[in-house]
């Protein structure tokens, strides 16, 4: 019953989405207020019904209803309750349902927080988001129905992939989707502007907070994914440039360029064509990511069950949405007037430079990700493009962007003089270069990339501090600093922290792969690791060999780590559960490999010392906080207050 209810709810949602898409868009074209007013209730109704569908699916998982095919394929009766819940979005069908729920959530949010916007703009934005919902709901209902029944019902499920049975699964996908899908708002605003022909600073002001919040969520989602992979996969890595990882990183790069471009359009009315195009590109990349991960055209650890038939549907959808938006862009672009002039080294010029670099980096990632497919499609063989390529190409590209990050916030709008900038920044530059060289020399001999990384991190930190100092000069008070300013400073600071973390861990991490018998010890980075053997351990849905490793320093016992080798009951799949001891300045990471003898007394053990790795994710956290802070700036909220029913003002008077 419940699954059928869920299925029915999806159908109703599709009908509401159609209403939400078609009527308001026609209404906006014709200036028909009644049709335009359909948008808000239709959107909110759609949200209610997709949530009902989601609850029905989650319920089926929680009560172990194995007559639902999706539950039978992805869950297991012994699976702990929390993972039974997260299994709702652990499959292709379920994750698409999550997509749709989050899209409806964003749409509802826009419908609620848009009282100050012109009616036709609201109608168009909600209408475009409705079109996207229609596409996804249709896809769900025709090719990927999560409520398909399995008759006769399975006795038990095939279990969730052990790699997903981690609490990263609880937050990473929802946060990632909040970001990914959130760019649909910026996309819809861009389309609305193109359709109405009104593309001005006001439009930028309205789009900006939505885009920044989506960007912050995406940053959080990617950071969580990286952190989860680090803890879960057992080889100590935190980014593999896997196609699915790239599929989330590319929208992030575009989104970063977008929020910076919006700043210029809002403040100076310039870069309109750029900003609109970036808004279209960011969401297009989100959709492209969805295609790449579900169609089977690329090989990835992360890919859902791949199916060319589904791939064809998504591709068709991409052609409609992205192709359509780009046609609209090409048609309306000449109508967009350019803003004011600006000179070299003005903030606009530096932001343009920043965007150019980010887009080159985006191009590089896209090229590397798609190149194997390009070569194969042209019948020229099969090649692989992996981390060595991306690292070789991406790091040098980002370098100038990091440098600009220091100068940009300090440059004046419209016009800035180079001698002035040099005099303000020369000490910061000198200290940064000195830091880079000295740190690198004292730590492990001169390493060029380490020097560069340290110098950049210090540069960004110092310029952030200079930013504060200059704002507070002449008696200005701390309370006069806007949230927007704080957000920017925190986000850039977070970048510095992240760069420092990456620099240290990439250049100074060490690992050792040893065979350990009970009582054996090995040393790494000043720590001594003593293996105390393994014990049998029974988990809720797995059996484990639980190792005990004593970590000591200078003879003093510090703590014990318990890496595990698990075999999951339902699938028989083995999995390594690494033991990580996170500390601010260095992680100790121990993973059990294979037992090397019959009685499992000797094991292959991998030990890592990962200095400063947590700075990566702490830095990302600062960026997320900065993003949310900037989006909550007064000027976005004042607009809402000022256009509260004008009746109130006349009544009070």
């Amino acid at each position, binding site marked *: 019953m419940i699954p059928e209810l869920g299925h029915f709810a999806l159908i109703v949602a599709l009908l509401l989405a159609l209403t939400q898409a078609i009527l308001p868009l026609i209404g906006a074209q014709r200036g028909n207020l009644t049709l335009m007013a359909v948008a808000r209730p239709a959107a909110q109704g759609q949200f209610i019904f997709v949530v009902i569908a989601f609850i029905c699916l989650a319920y089926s998982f929680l009560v172990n209803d194995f007559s639902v095919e999706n539950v039978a394929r992805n869950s297991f009766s012994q699976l702990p309750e929390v993972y039974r819940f997260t299994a709702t979005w652990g499959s292709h069908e379920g994750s698409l349902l999550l997509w749709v729920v989050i899209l409806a959530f964003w749409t509802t949010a826009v419908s609620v927080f848009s009282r100050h916007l012109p009616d036709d703009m609201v109608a168009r934005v909600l209408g475009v988001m409705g079109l996207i919902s229609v596409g996804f709901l249709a896809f769900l209902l025709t090719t990927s129905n999560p409520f398909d029944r399995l008759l006769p019902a399975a006795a038990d499920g095939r279990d969730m992939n052990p790699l997903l049975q981690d609490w990263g699964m609880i937050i990473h996908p929802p946060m990632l989707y909040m970001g990914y899908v959130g760019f649909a708002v910026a996309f819809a605003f861009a389309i609305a502007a193109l359709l109405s022909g009104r593309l001005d600073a006001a439009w930028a002001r309205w789009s900006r907070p939505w885009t920044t919040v989506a960007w912050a969520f995406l940053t959080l989602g990617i950071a969580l994914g990286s952190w989860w992979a680090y803890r879960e996969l057992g080889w100590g890595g935190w980014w593999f440039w896997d196609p699915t990882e790239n599929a989330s990183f590319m929208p992030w790069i575009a989104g970063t360029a977008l929020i910076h471009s919006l700043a210029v359009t809002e403040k100076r009315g310039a870069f309109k064509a750029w900003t609109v195009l970036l808004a*279209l590109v960011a969401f297009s990349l989100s959709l492209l990511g969805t295609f790449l991960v579900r169609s089977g*055209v690329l090989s990835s650890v992360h890919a859902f069950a791949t199916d060319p038939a589904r*791939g064809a549907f998504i591709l068709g959808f991409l052609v409609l949405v*992205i192709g359509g938006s780009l*046609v609209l862009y*090409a048609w309306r*672009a000449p109508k967009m007037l350019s803003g004011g002039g600006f000179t070299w080294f003005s903030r606009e010029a530096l932001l343009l430079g920043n965007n150019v670099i980010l887009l080159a980096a985006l191009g590089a990632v896209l090229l590397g990700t*798609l190149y*194997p497919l390009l070569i194969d499609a042209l019948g020229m063989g*099969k090649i692989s493009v992996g981390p060595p390529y991306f690292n070789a190409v991406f790091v040098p590209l980002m370098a100038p962007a990091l440098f600009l990050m220091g100068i940009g916030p300090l440059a004046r709008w419209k016009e800035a003089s180079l001698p002035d900038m040099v005099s303000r920044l020369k000490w910061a530059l000198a200290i940064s270069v000195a830091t880079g060289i000295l740190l690198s020399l004292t730590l492990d001999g001169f390493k060029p990339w380490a020097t560069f990384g340290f110098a950049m991190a210090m540069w960004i930190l110092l310029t952030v501090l200079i930013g504060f100092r200059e704002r507070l000069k002449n008696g200005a008070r701390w309370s006069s600093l806007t949230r927007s300013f704080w957000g920017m400073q925190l986000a850039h600071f977070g970048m510095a922290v992240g760069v420092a973390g990456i620099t240290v861990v990439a250049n100074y991490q060490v690992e050792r792969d040893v065979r350990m018998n009970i009582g054996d010890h090995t040393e790494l980075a000043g720590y001594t690791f003593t293996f105390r053997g393994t014990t049998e351990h029974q988990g809720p849905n797995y059996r484990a060999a639980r190792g005990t490793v004593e970590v000591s320093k200078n003879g003093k016992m510090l703590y014990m780590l318990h890496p595990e080798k698990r075999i999951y009951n339902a699938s028989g799949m083995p999995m390594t559960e690494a033991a990580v001891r996170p500390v601010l300045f260095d992680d100790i990471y121990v993973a059990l490999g294979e037992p090397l003898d019959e009685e499992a007394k000797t094991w292959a053990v991998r030990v890592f010392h990962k200095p400063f790795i947590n700075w990566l994710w702490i830095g990302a956290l600062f960026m997320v906080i900065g993003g949310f802070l900037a989006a909550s700036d007064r000027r976005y909220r004042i607009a809402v207050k000022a256009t509260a029913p004008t009746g109130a003002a006349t009544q009070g008077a």
Partner: protein
Amino acid sequence: MKRWIPLILFLVLVGFFAKGLFLNPREVPSPFIGKSAPDFTLPVVGDANATFSPADMKGKVWVMNVWAPWCVSCRQEHGLLMALAQSQTTPIVGLNWKDKQREAEQLLAQQGSPYFAVPDDLSGKVGIDYGVTGTPETYVIDQAGIVRMKHVGPISPDIWKEKFEPKLKELGV
């Protein structure tokens, strides 16, 4: 004019994606096509004194089927291979790959052997030399010892008819 560039770039990409839907990113072409089959000498399953080497087959077109007793897909094609051994003249050599449990002899005795010879690659080294990544994989080698074709996965009657027969005919069988 440049306002049309994003759309054009996108459509080019779509073309590649559409083609990509028909391709399998994990199917790796063999670098041995057109090159000499790597030489080896291995003991033969079921006969302690005999050995097998590709040189033994010079002058004939032959098929090398890489299989293993523990391989489930190999069981699928076993029936077809038995029929082929009867119905056509191209000898099928069965390279026994990484048979740690030593089950090949018994299995072939029980289920019948379609193989002209069964070289025993216990360590998997010969497999590595041929670029084998799993079982079953099947090679077609010509009279001069040159590898002419490689098929990954079990052979079905359709695949034999559409892929193997034309190739064998081309080689003069």
